[in-house]
């Protein structure tokens, strides 16, 4: 059961560090089981490379159950591979055929520089959150949780926006390398909750400013981000963010 019968050719991006140029390198893997995850197939390849005295391929991964957002491979031209609604760690080899050639690249965006091989630097996302993706409430300041009823529809909608895992697939797939889906998910989550109102217009302005400063592109409403998002974050969030952003510029007393 441990080994299967799939034989595959992989073309994988190798790049020593962010100062050197990278290129695609061909590898063969054999006896791959359709029950393996895509990352477990990489484990097999790496084990083989180590035993031959070569350097294994470096890629980000951690929880391997689709929630931490670490894994970030661009597989055959699509972030997280050919299936919808999942991350690379949830992609199984049964989605491929024996004899396939698979091209694996890192996320491509100037705001996500390559660190090594398939690993990129996504700290730009953290800096955007640090610029305003929060509600300013120090520990100990909270009232009773049920003192503030929130209509279920609104709470559910905020939750859907909050499901973002910060993986960066939206940026990777966007022809403009725009981070609008990521930023709008957080803006929209907090804007739909009563707790988020006091900082609503300040937040959207700060986060958009930071997003621009990081070098992400603009949104041209192509919708690739929504199609490729493993968590189904909706484009509606971008519309909400734009609406709040314009409102802020016209009516907010604070100009950030």
């Amino acid at each position, binding site marked *: *059961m441990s*080994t299967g019968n799939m034989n595959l050719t992989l073309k994988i991006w190798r790049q*020593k*560090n962010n100062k050197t140029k990278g290129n695609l390198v061909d590898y063969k893997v054999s006896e791959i*089981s359709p*029950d*393996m*995850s895509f*990352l*477990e197939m990489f*484990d097999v390849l790496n*084990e083989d*490379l*180590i*035993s031959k*005295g*070569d*350097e294994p391929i*470096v890629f980000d*991964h*951690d*929880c*391997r*159950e*689709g*929630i*931490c*957002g*670490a894994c970030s491979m661009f597989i055959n031209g699509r972030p997280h591979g050919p299936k919808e*609604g999942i991350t690379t760690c*949830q992609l*199984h080899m049964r989605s491929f055929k024996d004899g396939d050639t698979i091209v694996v690249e890192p996320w491509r965006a100037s705001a996500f520089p390559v*660190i*090594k091989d398939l690993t990129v630097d996504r*700290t730009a996302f*953290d800096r955007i*959150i*640090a610029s305003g993706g*929060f509600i300013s*409430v120090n*520990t*100990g*300041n*909270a*009232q*009773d*949780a*049920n003192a503030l*009823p*929130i209509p*279920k529809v609104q*709470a559910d909608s*905020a*939750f859907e926006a*909050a*499901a973002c895992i*910060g993986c960066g697939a939206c940026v990777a797939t966007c022809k403009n390398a725009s981070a609008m889906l990521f930023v709008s998910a957080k803006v929209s989550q907090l804007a739909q*909750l009563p*707790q*988020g109102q006091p900082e609503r217009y300040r937040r959207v302005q700060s986060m958009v400013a930071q997003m621009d400063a990081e070098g992400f592109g603009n949104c041209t409403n192509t919708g690739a981000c929504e199609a490729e998002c493993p968590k189904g974050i909706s484009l509606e969030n971008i519309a909400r963010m734009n609406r709040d952003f314009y409102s802020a510029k016209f009516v907010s007393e604070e100009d950030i």
Partner: protein
Amino acid sequence: MAELNAHIPEGELTEKWTKLRSSMPLVNPANKRSIEIVVVGSGLAGASAAATLAEMGYKVKCFCFQDSPRRAHSIAAQGGINAAKNYQNDGDSTYRLFYDTIKGGDYRAREANVHRLAEVSANIIDQCVAQGVPLAREYGGLLDNRSFGGTQVQRTFYAAGQTGQQLLLGAYSALERQIGMGKVEMFTRHEMLEVVVVDGKARGIIARNLITGELERHSGHAVLLCSGGYGNVFYLSTNAMGSNVTAAWKAHKKGAFFGNPCYTQIHPTCIPVSGDHQSKLTLMSESLRNDGRIWVPKKKDDNRKASEIPEDERDYYLERRYPAFGNLVPRDVASRAAKERCDAGYGVGNSKLAVYLDFKANTERYGRIEANKHNIHNPDKETCMKLGREVIKEKYGNLFDMYAQITGEDPYELPMRIYPAVHYTMGGLWVDYNLMTTVPGLYALGEANFSDHGANRLGASALMQGLADGYFVIPYTIGAYLSKELSTKPIPQDHPAFVEAEANAKAIIDKFFAIKGTKSVDHFHKKLGKIMWDKCGMARNAQGLTEAIAAIQQLRKDFWSDVRVPGSADEFNPELEKAGRVADFIELGELMCRDALNRNESCGGHFREEYQTEEGEALRDDENYAYVSAWEYKEGVNFELHKEELKFENIKVAQRSYK
């Protein structure tokens, strides 16, 4: 030798925390600005502690090995977080949460700590909601609750099957806010490799920058380890690939005692192993046991499909054995019961190492309620199933999707196949009531400490403990220590203790590259995992543990003579990171077996086959083992046992019964 004093405050149980909090020495705002605190880890405990301490005015440095603090493994917690809010008006109270937790832990936790946890549990929910964490709500706009194992009230708050994610993102946003204000300095892709102890006090850490490979010195007036649990000692577990014991283990080697290392939680509902290629196991949340019924065929080696087995030929063994709690018995009980059925030949699926978790009955029940709401009278079964499916989808949709993704089967149509897997470790660094380890100035929070769950943790209590420690306990208790450190100047990083600690870390790294062996790190990790699972897993016995100790010692020798670490030290090198972690896991594995061998009783997750009741339940020995095992590290991977007696003054210690 360090003194083992739990520093439990005097007075009535219900007054201890309130009194201590009000009489705790304080540090004034001006002084806080010149005090530095190092926080290792950015999960629920680390992020909440770092954010809160920074809000209070301390200078904080926070470290995580992930590329972002948002990816700490707390993110993967699914089911929920307990709090004694009694919103459901079902008789819940602080005392009841305290009682359930002590009983669930099989009377091996400290009363005072657990009571404090129950007291602050309600504040956690308030804080998280204020941060914008979207917990599940009813149509009236108020918070919803569900049941978890080991309790008869509904006190679990949740956000679909992503509670950990939402709570962590709340703590992360509080942390990022402080980072944005310059009050926390964040170091991502950094791994702690040494604790620096100056004149007997923890004064900093040596961390490796994982991208450049540089060893860095970071000083502080206190060090907080919030680095999670050590379930990955088993190789296969529900933990993330990077979860490791290294920070705790390095602290252990610098004098911090390790408490109850053998207490491991094997979670009953995980997706079974499918082959040797498997790199990790996936949990199916305990919340599923609200609506899923667990069964196996009544006939041995029954190869029929689940749907072909009629109702009266199914053994709902948890409902049969434990009528009062049914499918919601605590995890240790449910796991052992599954193992018992499978070992006896009633398992299902190809491997026969699985049982069914079946949602059909409750799907139909929900469907009937929905039909009623839609004014459909006498609905047929098909309509009920269709309507019920929508309800199940709303409650557990992401879990069902995850199951389908991994197994290729549709759990809405077929019952899930599940089997127990390593999930959580109750053991950890020994801490006193203030969460301080046996090294002054060195604290341990969250899963990294041993303190609140005894020998078995109840579901939805890990999130509660992580956030309690970080938001509501350490911000107070650390004042007691820091108020005496006001005259301590910033710690000089050229102190000999820093030089020596850095040299130690470097020596270990150099040694890895010098071995030039033939086997990968994973090779050794898998071997260790197999020894641990076979001999120190769900059931243990003296002979097996003795064999395991010898096998692990041999494995340690093999590792240090034959491991191959490719690449170099001065670059991004995940194989080198793994080597360091596995080296520590091997030493820990031996200690776990020693602890399990020492504890001649069964309690909670620690089941010694020699000690069981006639019905096969865990048989405690309160006369001889009502203590915390606190192990001291001795030169050359040796360990000395110290004991902290557990006193039960408010709860009558009894044989745990869920019947």
